[in-house]
């Protein structure tokens, strides 16, 4: 007997269940961290791990306020500043990178140089080595130029870090566009500036959103360079988080989990806002016009 053919576009119960299980496995660590953020220190360290407990907001309070053991006064921590730093640095740097990357990508796509592919390859090679390899020269450059510890320094570094990725991704979006539309706009009296801003950019907005979010996630979580190149005032959350480890009482898992949970919110929010664009962005060009 012939095998029953499933109607296209409909998943059966089996596949749905399988996907749910896989999804759950992926999400579980995140789920556990969020759960821990609401636990007291005793609950967090309980063996066997507790799934049901009385939730507390103490951890979130102590992210921003520290109670002195000797005087009993509470004192604001610098965590608010670090959250601001993370948001400010990541958004600005990735924003710059997408802008520069888009301009460069348009040039690479529409006005190829002699040896265009070689240039593109060289740009890509900067992403081929593990960043830790260049940490010493970069550190020295920052020390000598005085950029170490400043906002400019770390933003410049993150911008430079995201440009190769932006150029490659955005170029592929430009390559997918029908150049006739640009020619038509030229025939209809558009200046080159208008061709670019009025016709090219609107067509790849979804792609730009995707590029921005990918860059943002990478930058948001970056630890190594942030550790070495930020100062007390420009420290980002990942570095600040690492600094809560250790001390006389050991790792405060509740506090750590609370910072992580708060740290997830902005990126989650951005991704959620742009999810439709993202889906269109990553599938861009897979359906021929």
């Amino acid at each position, binding site marked *: 007997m012939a095998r029953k053919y499933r109607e296209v576009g409909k998943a059966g119960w089996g596949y749905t269940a399988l996907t749910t299980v896989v999804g759950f496995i992926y999400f579980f660590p995140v789920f556990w961290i969020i759960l821990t953020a609401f636990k007291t220190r005793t609950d967090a360290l309980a063996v066997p791990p507790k799934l049901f407990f009385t939730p507390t907001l103490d951890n979130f309070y102590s992210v921003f306020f520290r109670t002195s053991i000797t005087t009993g006064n509470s004192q604001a921590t610098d965590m608010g500043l670090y959250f601001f730093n993370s948001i400010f640095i990541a958004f600005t740097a990735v924003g710059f990178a997408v802008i520069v990357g888009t301009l460069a990508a348009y040039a690479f796509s529409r006005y190829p140089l002699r040896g265009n592919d070689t240039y593109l390859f060289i740009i890509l090679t900067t992403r081929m080595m593990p960043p830790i390899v260049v940490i010493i020269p970069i550190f020295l450059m920052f020390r000598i130029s005085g950029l170490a510890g400043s906002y400019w320094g770390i933003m410049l570094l993150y911008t430079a870090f995201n440009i190769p990725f932006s150029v490659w991704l955005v170029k592929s979006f430009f390559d997918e566009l*029908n150049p*006739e*539309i640009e*020619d*038509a*706009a*030229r*025939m*209809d*009296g*558009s*200046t080159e500036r208008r061709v670019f801003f009025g*016709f090219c950019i*609107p*067509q790849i907005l979804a792609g730009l959103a995707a590029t921005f979010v990918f860059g943002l996630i990478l930058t948001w979580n970056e630890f190594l360079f942030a550790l070495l190149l930020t100062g007390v005032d420009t420290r980002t959350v990942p570095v600040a988080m690492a600094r809560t480890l250790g001390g006389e009482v050991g790792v405060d898992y509740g506090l750590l989990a609370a910072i992580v949970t708060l740290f997830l919110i902005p990126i989650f929010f951005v991704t959620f806002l742009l999810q439709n664009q993202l889906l269109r962005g990553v599938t861009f060009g897979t359906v021929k*016009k």
Partner: protein
Amino acid sequence: MTIELRKLTKRYGTLTAVDAIDLDVDDGEVLCLLGPSGCGKTTTLRMIAGLEFASEGDVLLGGKRVNGLAPRVRNVAMSFQFYALYPSITVAENLAYPLHADKLSKTEIAERVARVSKTLQLDGILNRTPSQLAEGEKQRVAVGRSIIRDPNCFLFDEPLSRLDVQLREEMRGEIKSVLQDLSRPTVIVTHDQLEALTMADRIAVMRDGRIEQVDTPHNIFQHPTNLFVAGFIGTPQMNLVPATLTSAQEDGVAEFSVEGGQNLKIQVDRRICELSAGARVTLGIRPRNLEISHEAVEDGLSTKIDMVEPMGAETLAHLYDGKHDLRVVTDWRVPLTEGEQVHTRFLPGTTLVFTEDEQVLRS
């Protein structure tokens, strides 16, 4: 307004895409650039538009040299192969877009859009976006967008290549009638000879960046100047038979020895007597100028029917003379059996003779 091309050349590195072409298009004339893919016809069009700059030579619009000028300064309208409609705006906005540079009032723009949409029957779809249109509608919007202004000339790049056969016939007529009302020089690029033959006042046949012949559709078909044009124009293709001249008379009656050994005595152009016996030539004859006969004839070849393709009102037969395939088109009523031995008569005065340098003999 006229378009003139003077020794126009385009090189990409070592490749010469367009090679010193000269061409004039008069006011109100429709000229088709016809040729196989990669022959330089679209490059030529883009140089007239100003989307590509010439490596050498000049483009003149209305007698004025426009070489270094941007497209918008040239005031040329062009419609593209893939229509190039602006994807994010409606049909009405697409139509109005070319007017934005002209600083017209809102009412005037609305008037022009209304006029064009009436001419091309776009009234019902003005508020749709391009992605909601059928191919034929897209084509009409593209044409509408190019005629909404009053440009110096019109350029069409493969205007019908994306349409299906029925729509193509419909649009061919529509474009032709629109163009007749415009009385501006128009250049149409196409690789489809039927399109060129039906729409053009004159056709320029191109090959490898050069123009092989410029003439009226009738003359291109009846009097091709060389072997390439003869073989390129006409469906089914012209039969081209290599032969050697045996003898020729003053009145143009000549005897040939066809490759494969058969002899053929036919009436050709009088200039055949300029050639000496033994000259290598190519005989060209259209499939509709061959006649199938069951008796042996002097002005024909003995052949075997290889394959029969009914085409409706006519039948296309492939005949084989032992060396070449000959295509013959006959009335559908003529009985043909595959494998049958027949004689193929060359109707007098219809055979063209091409000399060894591929040029036709014509007095």
